[in-house]
Every structure is written in structure tokens, then in C-alpha cells.
């Protein structure tokens, strides 16, 4: 009986405690990366390269080789992530190593430069690498901070439901606006015609939509109606209510879009700049041996 019980319990334990890629195996890769950094810094401090530390010394070549191989291996995550496998070299382990070894590149590559920078292909490769790392750090911090906000904002609503809610409110607005005179009908029409997913990258990332036609239409209607006597069954009143509702739905959708964009945008830097980095790195290596 005991034998039957134990595997069940251990399986339950294993599945209940979530081990994210950052904490994978009690920060195994964080420790390995830290050890590499400490070793590199210690070697840098102990070896007195004359006349000043530079990438062309023996130590510089060692650090440079390690750094270049690391960059290539880190890039392979893009290939690796498309094939999920469990075990020691699971995707989680691989991602954990990607994150921490990638961070250790900050130390390795900076020491490789010997703190000599200039307007050349060598510093270009370094700057691109730092940009890739910075975007990666940004991405991870977004992954840590945003999913809860995203879920809170959705309130169990799916994206299909959001889209459907928009379509529904638009239909209602359309119907309610039929009896209006042309001026008011145009205002409603402007709200209907505007693409709720438009606005450009900046609006998407900041959540600020300056040219929101719905809000503009509502404001204009209210301005005009401020001094008009309230009548029962005024179609403009109904329009106002509907625009108000549409505004609320738009707010939720746009918040959702903004959070998703923040989660996503780093990859638009991380991936293309990685390729820029690899080309600059190739030019760097070729140039060193070309003018040897």
C-alpha cells in the first residue's frame, strides 16, 4: 500500500509546486553564471595586461571566444523553443540558462573590451549586444509584472468576447442613431468608423488615444445638449448612454492591448537586434583577423 501511495503523492507534489524558468532547480544557472562572472573578474584583476587591458591579449581572446560562442548558443533558443522536450535539457532548463548566461555576457563582454570604446565596428557589436540584453531584461521584468494586471483587466473576458461586445454596442449605436439629424448622425458615425485597434504603436504602448472618436462624439453631444430641456424619449439621451458604454468597453480593450503590447514589444527589439549583433560580431571577428 505504501508503495502505491508514495508515487502518487510525489507526483502531486511535483505538479503543485510551480518551478518557473527563473527559479529552475533552485537557481542552478544563476549560480553557474555568477561563478563565471566572478572567475572572469578575478582573472581580469589579477592579470596585468600591458600596456593596458585590451581584447587582443591572451585573456582578451579567451573572453572574446567565450562571449562569441555564448552569443551563438543563446541565439539557438529561437530554434530550440520550437521543439519542446522534458528532462535535463528541457525547454525550461534551456530558457533558465539562456537568461542567466545571457546576463553573464554583460561581464564577459565588458571585460573583453578592456573598457576601450570608440566609434567602430567593435563597439557597435558591444552596443548591440547590450541592447539585446537590455531588451531581454525588460521582457523578463514585464513577464513578471504584467500577467496579473492583464488577467485583472480581462475579468474572465476572452478576446472574442471583447470583439463581440464592441460589435454589439456598435450595432445598438447604429440603430439608435437612425432618427437623428445628419449632424448628430455624423458624430455617431465617426465613432463607428474608427478602428478600435488603430491608433499606432505609441498609442498602443501608452494607452493614450488622443483622437478617440467615441469620446469626442460624446463630448460634443453633451456640450450641445447641456442647455437643452430634458425630454422623455430623447434619442440623444440614449445615444449618450450607448457612447458611455462603448467608452467603457474601449477602455478595457485598450488596456488589454497595452498590456499585451508591453509583453510583446521587447521581442521586436530582442530578435532583430540579435541578428544585427551576429552580423556585427562576424564583422568584428573577421576584421580582427583580416588586419591581424
Amino acid at each position, binding site marked *: 500500500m505504501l508503495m502505491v501511495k508514495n508515487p502518487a503523492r510525489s507526483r502531486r507534489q511535483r505538479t503543485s509546486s510551480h518551478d518557473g524558468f527563473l527559479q529552475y532547480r533552485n537557481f542552478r544557472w544563476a549560480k553557474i553564471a555568477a561563478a563565471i562572472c566572478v572567475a572572469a573578474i578575478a582573472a581580469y584583476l589579477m592579470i596585468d595586461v600591458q600596456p593596458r587591458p585590451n581584447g587582443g591579449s591572451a585573456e582578451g581572446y579567451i573572453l572574446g571566444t567565450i562571449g562569441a560562442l555564448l552569443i551563438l548558443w543563446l541565439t539557438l533558443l529561437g530554434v530550440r523553443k520550437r521543439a519542446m522536450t522534458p528532462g535535463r535539457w528541457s525547454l525550461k532548463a534551456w530558457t533558465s540558462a539562456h537568461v542567466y548566461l545571457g546576463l553573464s555576457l554583460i561581464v564577459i563582454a565588458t571585460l573583453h573590451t578592456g573598457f576601450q570604446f570608440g566609434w567602430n565596428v567593435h563597439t557597435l557589436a558591444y552596443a548591440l549586444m547590450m541592447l539585446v540584453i537590455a531588451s531581454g531584461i525588460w521582457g523578463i521584468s514585464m513577464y513578471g509584472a504584467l500577467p496579473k494586471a492583464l488577467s485583472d483587466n480581462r475579468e474572465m473576458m476572452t478576446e472574442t468576447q471583447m470583439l463581440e461586445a464592441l460589435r454589439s454596442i456598435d450595432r445598438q449605436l447604429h440603430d439608435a442613431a437612425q432618427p437623428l439629424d445628419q449632424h448628430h448622425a455624423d458624430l455617431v458615425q465617426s465613432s463607428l468608423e474608427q478602428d478600435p485597434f488603430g491608433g499606432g504603436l505609441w498609442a498602443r504602448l501608452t494607452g493614450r488615444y488622443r483622437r478617440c472618436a467615441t469620446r469626442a462624439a460624446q463630448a460634443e453631444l453633451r456640450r450641445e445638449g447641456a442647455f437643452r430641456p430634458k425630454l422623455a424619449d430623447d434619442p440623444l439621451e440614449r445615444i449618450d448612454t450607448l457612447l458611455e458604454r462603448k467608452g467603457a468597453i474601449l477602455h478595457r480593450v485598450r488596456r488589454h492591448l497595452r498590456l499585451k503590447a508591453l509583453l510583446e514589444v521587447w521581442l521586436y527589439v530582442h530578435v532583430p537586434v540579435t*541578428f544585427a549583433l551576429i552580423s556585427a560580431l562576424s564583422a568584428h571577428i573577421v576584421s580582427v583577423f583580416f588586419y591581424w
Partner: protein
Amino acid sequence: MSFKIITIARTSEGREIPREKLVEGNEVGVGRLSENDIHLADLAVEPRHAVISEPAPGRLVIESISGLGFGFDGRTVMRAEIDPASAGGELRFGSHRLKLGTDDGTITVTVERVEALSDSAEEKDQQTVFTLRGLMPGKRVSAYTFLALILAAFLAWPIYTYASAHGEKIRPAGVHGDKSWESGPLSKAHANLENDCQACHVDAFVAVRDNACEACHTDVHGRDATGLERVAMNGPGRPGPAAYDHAPEKLLAVARGGPQDFGGRVKAFFKRTFNKPEGRCVDCHTEHEGAGPMPATQQAFCADCHNGLQGRLQSAGFNSAIGSATDFGLQHPEFKPLILAGFDGTHPVPFAKRDARAGGNPLLGWRMQRTVMSGPIQMQNGLKFTHAQHLSTTNGVAEMWRNVSPGQGPGMDCQDCHKTDPSGTRYQPVRMETACQSCHSLGLQTVGGTVRQLPHGEPAQVIADIRAFYGSGGSFRPTGLPVARYTRSRPGEVNAERRSADLARAAALLPGKGDALIRATFAPGGVCGECHTVSMGGPDGVRIAPVAQPTRYLRNGWFDHRAHDNLDVRGTDGARRWGCRDCHAAENSNAASDLLLPTLATCQACHTGENGAHKAALVRSGTASSCAMCHDYHADEGAPWVLKRKGKKTAPANQVAMLQVRWR
């Protein structure tokens, strides 16, 4: 007259559902209000937008009544006329399309909504609409764009630049692609090559070779020179910075030795693999390390070869006397001054050629020899002179000094005879006329208040003068005149005159030919023989042993007396006391042949090596001293390159420290 209005709706599958309505009358209204015959539930349509009428059969007029136009044949118009029977027509009101035609003589208007009622109602791909796709350039597109741009600008262009300028002597000015490959600015000396990568990087994938350096640094004659040859080679008129002159190449190869430790073997393996030969100029003269002067040569490079050098050279079969050195404070061979080793009497150089006053070189005819200073060294320079006697404060010399130069201390001091050269680096040879003669007078006779001197350095003239002194040449023996009275009178005008009077009186009383006076003059203890070794004979009748005073003993090392000025101190009685005696033990030297150079240990008392490594027991005061403080790899007559830069802002810290050190 009637209009058939067909309204088409569509099911969600897209199937058409036509609904027909017949309107009697000459015209139909188009608008958003339901009272219109053609009612368009479209916010872009005016409540009462237009009227379609048939003023005559076969002629249909559509006219806006709202001031808002409608679409006709792709344009927005206020009025349109068509022939429904023949051509028909298509109108556009907001999102609706109206097709006009005839059906059995009845005018038909087919109404259909062709656009969604709102943007959100349009078909949207849910997979992309909630993402950034479409808002930003695709990842793949930008990745390949970056890849192509960077490879073109930083790889293809520089290689093109190289290929197009390959073999050119000087590249034309302009923007060259390979400038982006430059890892750092060139030093000041090479700044003019900044635009000319191929001046040094001649061939692709071939590490910079010495012949690139030799293209400008043309003085390569030292390639096979050895120690003393090289000394002769140095001096003014050198053609410029030399590419080779440290040691012959074959010695250099042995000196470098093979790598001893594991790391060294690994390094050597990589250098072989990547075609980087050892011993190139650029091994030490690293470039692209920043604008400004090239950094000073580091001691580690010297010790790379000179540590254990002696053993390596000997085991390679070289009979070399070069000692091993690691650090001045720890291991450095004893000094090997280049000293006089006797005058070649069999092929004597005539005095006229050796006479410094006539522009001659006093060292001509002398054999020179480097001697290890393992103990006190003896060197015959031709003079009889002892330092102890002249520096005493209690003997007759001191008494004479006090009479001649009252107030100048209790006795003579070094500076009274030894004067520095204009640079202050070294001392000039001591001159008889300026240093000795104030005491060792050559006065012969007083003529009208002027003392007539025997000429120094011209023994034949001395003999002639003495004979002339006796006028007619009659015989004269200075009998009764004490020898001391005329060979060594007290200094000063008064004494010289007194002596001249004595001589004149003796000459008057005792006629002769002056032979006795000549003999006495040149005899040991005589006016000449007191300081010089004299032998009688020869064409002049007398021969003075040659005298030479080398001004520089250490040929491979540099010593600057000026840098040691701060050793000047005053004695407790306020009298001058130069610091010379701290290093030169002159007070105790009782032999003329004593070479008073300081020993290695004397220097090491202050100069403790590059990083202050030292033999602790010796140290009086620590002055960090790298090899480059005294030595140059490409040495010439002048000061080491590092010292030449002293005082400049960029001088290495240890050189600045040397200037600032104050002893006691």
C-alpha cells in the same frame, strides 16, 4: 409610373434575401427616415437625402435635396441623369449601393448594403488584431534588413576598401570603409598613418611584420651588431629611430627562449597556429592603444628575456658575458664600466690629435675594456693624483687652499675641480688651467709685473722657454737654490714673483745652459713630474705619459648627475659638503689609480626596482626604478626615452616619483 424597389439582405452565410416593394408615382425619395420610399438605415445618409424622378420616359434624374452629394460613377455629384433602359446606373449613398435599371418597363432600384455598419463589425483576424503585428515591422523583415545593412557597411565595404587600395603606397584622403575596423586611435608618432591602414596591415590575414616598420624606420644596420660595435655605432648623426639595435637577431632568438610553463606553451601554440611570429616590433610597440605618446616599455618585457638570460645564452653555445636581470632591486649584474686599459705605446697617437684644447680626442690611442665591478677597480689614467690628499681638511693642501680661497671651507671640495657639462648630466674632464694651476703654478719669470708661464701640454716649448730664459744660452746651474723653492712655491702672485726673482738671481750668479733646471722640471717631484709620468728622450727630448679622463663609464646604462642634485647637503659647520661623497668614496682614495665609481649596492640603497622589490637590508630610501629608467631597448648616446619624457603630464608615475623624491 412606378418604381420597383428591391432591398437585398444577406444571411450570415452570405445568401441573398431580396424583398420587393412597388411604389407608384413620378418620384421616390432616398433618405434615412422611414418615411422615404427608399429607406437607408445608414448614418452617412441624410434623413431626406435625394429624390429620383422620371421627368420623361427613358430619362431618370437623381438630385440631392440635402446639400450632400452621392456617389455616381465613382464621383460625388449633386445631380445625375441616366437612361435606365439602355445603360442603367449605379449610385452610392453612404454604405449602400443603389442599382438602377428597368424590368418590363418598370424602373427598378436594387438597394444593398455593401459595407459593414461599423469598423468593428468588419471581419477581423483575432489572431493578429490583439497583437503588435501590423503596427511594427515584422521581426523577420527587420532581422534580415539589419543583417544585410551591417554586413554591407562593416564587412563588405572595408574589404572592398582594402582590395581597391592594396599595394598603394599612400592611400588618398577620404572616407575609407576600414576605418570602422580601427579598434582605437594610433599614438601621436603614427597619427599621420591614421587614414592609411595598409601602411602596416599590408596583407590580409597576415599579422603586421617588421618590414612594414622598416619602410619608415630605415636604420636597420644594427641587425647583426654586437656589444662594443654598437657603442661605436652610436653617437651623433644616427639616421633616425632604429628598427634593430638591441642585440643581434640570433642572440635575441636564444634570449627569448622557449616557453617554460603550460600557459606559455599554449600561447606559443596559438601564435604558431594563427601565424603570429615572435619578436616582431609590434610585440612591444603596441598600437591602437589611444592617442598621445606611445606607452613606456614595461619591465616585464625586459625580464621576459633577461631573466635567466646568461644560462640560456651559454647553453646555446654563446660565449657571452651578459648577466641575468629580473629587477634592479632583486637581480641585476654588477656594473661593467668601460675603462682605460693602457695606452698603446707601440703605435702612439700624436699628442696633437689627442689634445682636447685643439679639438682632439684624449681617448684616442687608449685601449678600452669593460671590467666587472665586483670590487674596487684600478685604472691608470696617466696622472699621479690622490683624492684623499686633496680632500683633507688638515694637511698642507688644505692649508694652501685656505690661503688661496679664504672662506671657501676648511679644505677643497669636489666642485672646486669637477665642473658639470652644460646639461648637468655628466662632468667635464678636469683641466689643468682652470682647476690645478691656481696651486700648481707654472710661473717662470716676472716680466714687467706679468708672470711668464711655462706652457702646459707642450714639453718642447717648456724646454725652449727655459733655454731662452737663460738668454745667450751660457751655462747655468742653480746651485744653492732649494729645489722646492721653484718646483712647488706657494700659490699666488706674490709667491710666483718671489720665485721668479730667485730664479733670476740664481741665473745671474750661476751662468749655465739651463740643463739642470730642465732636468729638475721634468724630474719626479718637479713642476711637470709631480703630476705626470715623464721619460726623457724622443724627438722632443722628453715624453709625457698620455693622460685621459673618460666622461662616461656606463655605456649601456644612463646616469644623470642632475637628477641626483638633491643629494647636495651642508655639513654641520655650515660649510659646503657636496653629496658626491655619498656615492664616490673619494676621501679615502690614496691611490691615483682608484676608480671611484659607485657599486651596484650603492645604487640599490635607493633604487629598489620597479615595484619597490628590494634587498631590504640595503635600503635607505625607496625609489621605484624600472629598467627603462636607465636603459633603452634601442639605446643611443642620449637619455633613455622614458627620462626624456619626464615632467610631461603623460610620464609614467614611477618617473614622476623619481623627480619628487627627496633624500633626508
